[in-house]
């Protein structure tokens, strides 16, 4: 009986913390960025820290969704990011729909999302989709979202993105 329970738990990943998950190596996070979770990065330097993560994982395919596109792709290139691996989407008011569509396609292990977020139902949907596709979704925001329990890891960029300080969910 116990063995069956253990097997079920192992299959469901009940006691699996994100530290045991597969992770993308990132020099700014000692354990790397876990796969299959919803993470949030806030503070000045958040975009720089994502660029650093992408530069350290050159083979990683990423979808970058913005409601109003203000990113400078040539600046990403200057930071060592392979532009051919990044799929940009300017989604306007349809950012949440675009993110869900991209996650469902399961083509991108990493999805970066810069649009207003905080609606719990929407975050829960993202959480389920990231878990299903084993992809990580990084939400870029100005302030950490409050009571947003689907966000597994909340990080704050400090020293202009040279350091990522965990606010919630990290060891």
């Amino acid at each position, binding site marked *: 009986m116990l063995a069956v329970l253990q097997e079920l738990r192992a299959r469901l990943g009940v006691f699996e913390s994100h530290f045991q998950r597969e992770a993308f190596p990132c020099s700014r996070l000692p354990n790397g960025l876990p796969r299959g979770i919803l993470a949030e990065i806030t503070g*000045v330097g958040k975009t720089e820290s994502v660029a650093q993560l992408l530069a350290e994982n050159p083979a990683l395919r990423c979808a970058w969704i913005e409601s109003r596109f203000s990113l*400078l792709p040539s*600046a990403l290139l200057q930071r060592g990011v392979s532009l*051919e691996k990044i799929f940009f989407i300017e989604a306007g008011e349809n950012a949440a729909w675009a993110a869900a569509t991209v996650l469902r396609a399961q*083509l991108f292990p990493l999805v970066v999302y810069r649009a207003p977020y905080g609606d719990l139902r929407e975050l829960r949907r993202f959480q389920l989709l990231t878990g299903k596709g084993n992809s990580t979704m990084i939400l870029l925001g100005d302030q950490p979202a409050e009571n947003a329990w689907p966000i597994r890891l909340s990080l704050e960029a400090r020293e202009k993105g040279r350091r990522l300080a965990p606010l919630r969910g990290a060891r």
Partner: protein
Amino acid sequence: MKVVCVLMQPGESRGQALAEACLAFSPQVALGSDAAFVEIEGSRQLFGEEECIRRLKDMLELLDLKAKIAVASSVPAALAFARYGVTEVDRLPVAALADFLAPFAPQPFDELEVFRKLGVATIGDFKKIPRVQIPSRFGKQGLLAYERLLDAGRVAWPRWAPAERLEERVDFDCAAQIHSFEPVLFLLKSAFQRIFLRLYARRLKLAAFRVTFHLNKFSAGAERVTEISLPLPQSELKSVVLLTAERLSKELENRPLEDALEGVSILVTDTAPFHEAQRDFFSKREEENLAWASLVGRLEERLGPQKAFLATPSPRLLPEASWGKTLDETDRGTQVTVPLRPLRLLEPPLRLQRLGHELVSAQRRWRFTSFHGPEKLRGEWWLGGFEREYFHVETSEGETLWVFTAPVSPGGPRGLWLHGMFD
């Protein structure tokens, strides 16, 4: 030689579509007046006779065609087997000699009455008649039929080429008023199934098409046409149906059909080559390419053109023009070496005023601690020219702004703009 004959029902006009779909089995296809022929001897390494017949039956179902299928070692024998439902030449009725005489355009055989009087019922009986007696008994047509019977494998295949126009139409049983999109989707799906069957056989991908709603013929505007161009050519039915449904349902919601709908037709207006190879079980590349084309199509349909893209560097100094949009993964562009740019760029730049140690815009104010620069940029006189001096500005909140000064008007005083942020 191994020939498969697909014999259509009399009066069937969709032989062209059938022959095109048969290209999926072999490049050697011929179209007769009432049958399509495929030579499958060369393809037997890929699929056997039974597999071929099974696939042909599926294909006929998709095309909504009723036909008889038979396999033989020659074109006339395959046609006669399909027509009379026997599998041995000797057991074929003598009427089958018409198929041996002209298999691609059979004509009624004139001597049937003579055969009946002589008690010759089957080809087996006919073959028992000594050859020297055939011209005197059955004339030149009889002799020709006899020769063809003995040397049926040598029939020349007529040239056949797929039609330029690729169109499929599906109709309701009777014209119907459309109040929801479901019935239209039903028609569209079966029309697309046929289109993709034909495209696949021709090794083509769908790039653009025209959907026409055929309204009641007594209606004033008897047709409603929608052109759809896919951002990336696609070979997958599901994603194209989804994308078309999304577009058309929106259109029909905004502008319902004026009259009862008779049917829907799809005309392919643009295609791209489809280099299909044997499936690689150890690589997901093919599936990913399909999913990628489908994803881009859906995103562009909803968000508009050029809203989902890959970026490529452009060899221009003007920061906002230093990159371009593409969907070609192999397009690497040309990068120019310039000092580090901010990751965030405001488009258009935000006008600033300097008030003491503060930079003020219409929405926000920043207290700055230092200015670094300038980096002077000028050029592109052939496009009207620009001249800017860029500075890195450190603020008391720890942000680094990227601002520039430039003449407000040609020869006028210089103004200050916020162009980006090192976020």
